[in-house]
């Protein structure tokens, strides 16, 4: 069965190998560039107080934001590709070409057939993504130091392998339940993107209750640039959250004007009324806890799709 799995997936394995090699080269090249810039410009020795450091940081971010964004997009798309091109056709292509009737009537049971394939493909996928973890962490280290560890949350650590596992299982289950590779691919794309976005935007900020920081109106935001700022607003003396309408009603100085003078007058007005800035944020030290929580969610989702898929193969397919 191992040989059969290899024979059926060797082209995918070859393509995956090429993609992996390409990724490793890109990460190495950009990593070396980013690390050396970080060292040579003196950013590595910067502390926040030096005014020159602010400029260095700005230049660094401008210079590397495009490549960091592109790599982030590439890395977060990889799991979906695994689900689409390895997961969805796994059983569906057999059903489409009716070869399941050939392979399930040899001397092994269909459960052993499915079990071996699942084990091998899940194993290889996880291995490949886990192997990337140290390289990605090394590549993003300077960027994380300059910005925030949260900025590369989705590509660094254990969530990326968890996305890949989920996408693969989702693809397999979608292919089984729809019985057609193309439909399986479509369902995989839609569900993967929906669930990933829903969890990233609605659940992740609240895995743990965010911390609250109240600061003077002219120093808004979380205590440190390494924190993940989730929500920022203005409150009055009683701690009541104020809407933008209410604020501009009380302090109309800025309306229709964009210059610094008007802004200073506006801030002075706010301070006069005792307004403060309130931020909800997740501190940097929750990074790994959040990685574990999010990975567990995707692991559970994977199981939730795997169980009906396996059941369907064992009971419903002929």
């Amino acid at each position, binding site marked *: 069965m191992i040989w059969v799995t290899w024979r059926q997936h060797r082209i995918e394995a070859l393509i995956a190998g090429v993609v992996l090699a390409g990724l490793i080269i890109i990460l190495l090249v950009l990593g070396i560039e980013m690390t050396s810039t970080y060292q040579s410009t003196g950013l590595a020795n910067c502390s926040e107080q030096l005014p020159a450091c602010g400029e260095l940081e700005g230049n660094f971010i401008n210079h590397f934001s495009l490549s960091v964004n592109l790599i982030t997009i590439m890395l977060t798309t990889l799991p979906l590709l695994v689900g689409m091109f390895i997961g969805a056709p796994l059983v569906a292509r057999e059903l489409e070409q009716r070869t399941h009737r050939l392979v399930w009537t040899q001397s092994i049971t269909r459960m052993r057939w499915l079990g071996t394939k699942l084990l091998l493909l899940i194993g290889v996928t996880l291995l490949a993504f886990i192997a990337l973890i140290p390289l990605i962490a090394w590549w993003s280290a300077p960027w994380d130091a300059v910005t925030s560890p949260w900025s590369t949350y989705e590509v660094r650590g254990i969530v990326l392998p968890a996305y890949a596992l989920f996408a693969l299982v989702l693809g397999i289950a979608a292919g089984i339940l729809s019985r057609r590779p193309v439909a399986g691919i479509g369902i995989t794309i839609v569900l993967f993107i929906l669930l990933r976005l829903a969890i990233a935007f609605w659940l992740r900020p609240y895995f743990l209750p965010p911390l609250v920081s109240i600061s003077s109106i002219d120093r808004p935001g979380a205590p440190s640039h390494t924190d993940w700022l989730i929500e920022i607003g203005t409150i009055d003396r009683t701690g009541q959250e104020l809407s933008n309408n209410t604020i501009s009603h009380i302090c109309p100085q800025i309306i229709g004007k964009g210059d610094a003078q008007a802004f200073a007058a506006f801030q002075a007005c706010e301070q006069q009324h005792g307004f403060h800035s309130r931020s909800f944020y997740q501190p940097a030290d929750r990074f790994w806890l959040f990685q574990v929580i999010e990975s567990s969610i995707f692991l559970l989702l994977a199981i939730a799709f795997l169980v009906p898929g396996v059941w369907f193969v064992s009971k419903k397919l*002929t």
Partner: protein
Amino acid sequence: MIQALETINLGKRYGKDWALRGCTFKLPIGRVAGLVGPNGAGKTTLLHLAVGLLKPSAGSVQVFGEAPDRVLTRVGFVAQDRPLYRNFRVKDMLMLGQKLNPSWDMNLAKERLDRLAIPLNRPTGKLSGGQQAQVALVMALAKRPEMLILDEPIANLDPLARYEFQQTLMDAVAEDGLTVLFSSHLIADLDRICDYLIILSASQVQIASDIEPLLATHKRLIGPSDREASLARTHTILQVRSSERQSTLLVRLHGALLDPAWEVQEASLEDIILAYLALPAPFPFTIQHKGVQEAVR
């Protein structure tokens, strides 16, 4: 006695509709059995139940006295349309067979394909339909099965490919004494290969019998139309073609024909099958195997 295949009241339901119902028959070891029936009669369902691809909704099916999925090693199956992995070379298919079957006989497989001049290095998708059918059959034979189950194995093949396929099949049967069960639309071909016949119609098994007693008890009678009624008292009239005074009947005889007014002619297997397939369902009776026990409904 252990049968190659035995079903008792076997049924398969999809939602509300029964694809197969109340199916009871035996296929003794060593027979070459043809399974015939109109489209949608449940032939494929029955064969899938026999190889464990389907689980029964009612009744039971046993292969060599065991559940079908426990005897997969002893049964070679070729599914409808003879599926193969199209991007596998022929020798990859053989390797697959070897990896998935403990009893695989690689020499037999290579020797047969060699005899048929099928190139081992060609992807199966690039073979002709006839060659694909041969590869599928060789895959089933190289398992060294005790029974072969084939679902419409010669459908959509040209006459020569059909003939060659049957030749491979008959050689294997002659060498190994296999039991064979195969479904087909081509009644003329059944006549040449089979010694056992199963007729499935309207989701039920209507006949499961050796062919010889079938031929012995089914006759074509020609005689005066006004004697039909008295004939029907002792014998079963399956088919009537009448002109004004004279009738041509296909009759299943129960005992000797006493009325000398009827001229008796042999009926061909094709005539008999067509007569049964044309009968409105459900049939008035079923004939159990060997054609000796008869159950009246």
